[in-house]
């Protein structure tokens, strides 16, 4: 079953266009949405939530067409965003009561459990909490109402390293509880790598790659070559970027195999090293290759 589908979604602003967004979020999967600031992650998420209406394209969440099905859909979505705040003058207990009065699915015993695990005090006012505590309070409010889809829009942005690790640890802890469908956006690849099953890269309003996390890590390589005079590196399928300095060339490929290595060697180039890439390096290569293609 697919929790959310986006087909050829387009949204035009005066200085930014989200274009041709296609996304499939299978139920039970944790998808990481990675992109630089201003790439279109939040706009994509707001379109999924029905808060922004697409100019063209089809969006469905749990079978409801968006934005028409906004109200029904949001009953099944828990949303935490970096730019979302709770009411500073009220306590976490007030917020818990408010949410519990709206959602019959609210699980008070689970909420109490999360209070302990997140080390939060229900009677504390939100304005007296640290940023990390406020993020955890927001997470508690959405988790305890048991949404079918959890959308986390850069929840770790602005947190200091300690608070960020605390939030991630808390999140990983509760995500291990049961199967949830989660869309997690961030410009921090490390955060996404820790949590996600699949990854979608987005840049300048376009989805530039989308695959399982393991497939990305397995198929991407950085190959260092020594290219003697007279030899030219061939363009092999999957080749994303090439950087050359003197006789040394560095190629990143999204489809590494023995066959592609042999194709390079057949040109006379000598492979000096084949290196695995981190998700951050894969992301940067994707962005670089995508922007290079856009320039051509």
């Amino acid at each position, binding site marked *: 079953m697919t929790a959310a589908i986006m087909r050829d979604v387009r949204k035009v602003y005066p200085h930014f266009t989200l274009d041709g967004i296609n996304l499939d979020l299978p139920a039970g999967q944790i998808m990481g949405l990675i992109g630089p600031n201003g790439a279109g992650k939040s706009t994509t998420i707001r379109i999924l*939530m029905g*808060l*922004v*209406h697409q100019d063209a394209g089809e969006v469905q969440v749990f079978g409801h067409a968006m934005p028409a099905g906004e109200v029904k859909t*949001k009953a099944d979505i828990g*949303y935490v965003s970096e730019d*979302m*705040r709770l009411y500073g*003058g009220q306590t976490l207990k007030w917020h818990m009561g408010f949410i519990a009065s*709206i959602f019959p699915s609210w699980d008070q015993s689970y909420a109490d459990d999360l209070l302990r695990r997140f080390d939060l005090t229900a009677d504390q006012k939100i304005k007296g909490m640290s940023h990390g505590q406020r993020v955890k309070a927001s997470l508690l409010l959405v988790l305890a109402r048991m949404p079918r889809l959890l959308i986390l829009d850069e929840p770790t942005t602005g947190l200091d390293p300690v608070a960020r690790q605390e939030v991630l640890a808390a999140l990983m802890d509760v995500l291990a509880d049961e199967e949830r469908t989660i869309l997690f956006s961030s410009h921090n690849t490390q955060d996404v790598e820790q949590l996600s099953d699949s990854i979608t890269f987005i840049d300048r309003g376009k989805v530039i790659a989308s695959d399982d996390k393991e497939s990305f890590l397995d198929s991407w390589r950085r190959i260092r070559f020594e290219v003697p005079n007279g030899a030219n590196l061939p363009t092999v399928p999957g080749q994303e970027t090439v950087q050359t300095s003197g006789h040394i060339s560095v190629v990143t490929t999204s489809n590494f195999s023995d066959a592609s290595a042999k194709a390079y060697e057949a040109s006379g180039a000598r492979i000096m090293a084949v290196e695995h890439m981190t998700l951050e390096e894969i992301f940067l290569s994707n962005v670089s290759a995508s922007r290079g293609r856009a320039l051509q």
Partner: protein
Amino acid sequence: MNSFMIKKLIAKDWYFNRYIMLAYFVGGLIALGVMFSGGTTTFTIGSILLVTAIISLGCHLVMGTVVQERTNQTLAFIMSLPVSVRDYTAAKLFANITVFLVPWVLLSAFLLSIMSTSQIGSGGAVPIFTLMLFWMVITYLIMLGTALVSESEGWTIVAMAVCNTAFTLVFMGLNAIEGIGGELLKQPEVIWTGASLSVLAVEVAAIALILSLTFYFQSRKTDFL
């Protein structure tokens, strides 16, 4: 519309603004006490205090419940709940208007009742005071509508400045109309002339128009956060 969620949002805003409503109501009562403590000077000072209390309540509510909800980024929290922009607008208008109208109705009733009594003998001023009280509702709705539709603190402040500046001009304009101001103000009895009833009808129509326009512009929005 999602009446369940609209009721929840109205209850939330009432809960948040209960002390504000009470404080301005008490302030208005004090102003009424000053107005009718005897003498023309205290009547004038009390009138200014009453007008200030009602206008300030309006400004406070608009800034506190609409503008700050956006600047404090709590709007995203509310819009993550199962509500549409129409639900949010309906709840915001209903909650704000009722929180404003409860002290406004009570203070207006006290003011106009006292003025109408034979002992005070200022019944002739009741129509123009009524029209100015309705004008305050209009300016409040203009400020509220501007805040909701423009989503801008700057435009809301502009609307507040224009509305508050217009208060004196509107009063002077009404006072210059025969059948509303001038010699009529010196009459001890309440006299509703055709002119004052016509202006009252225009004010009621303006209230309906502002509410309709606010809903219309809100429903046309395609981006809400």
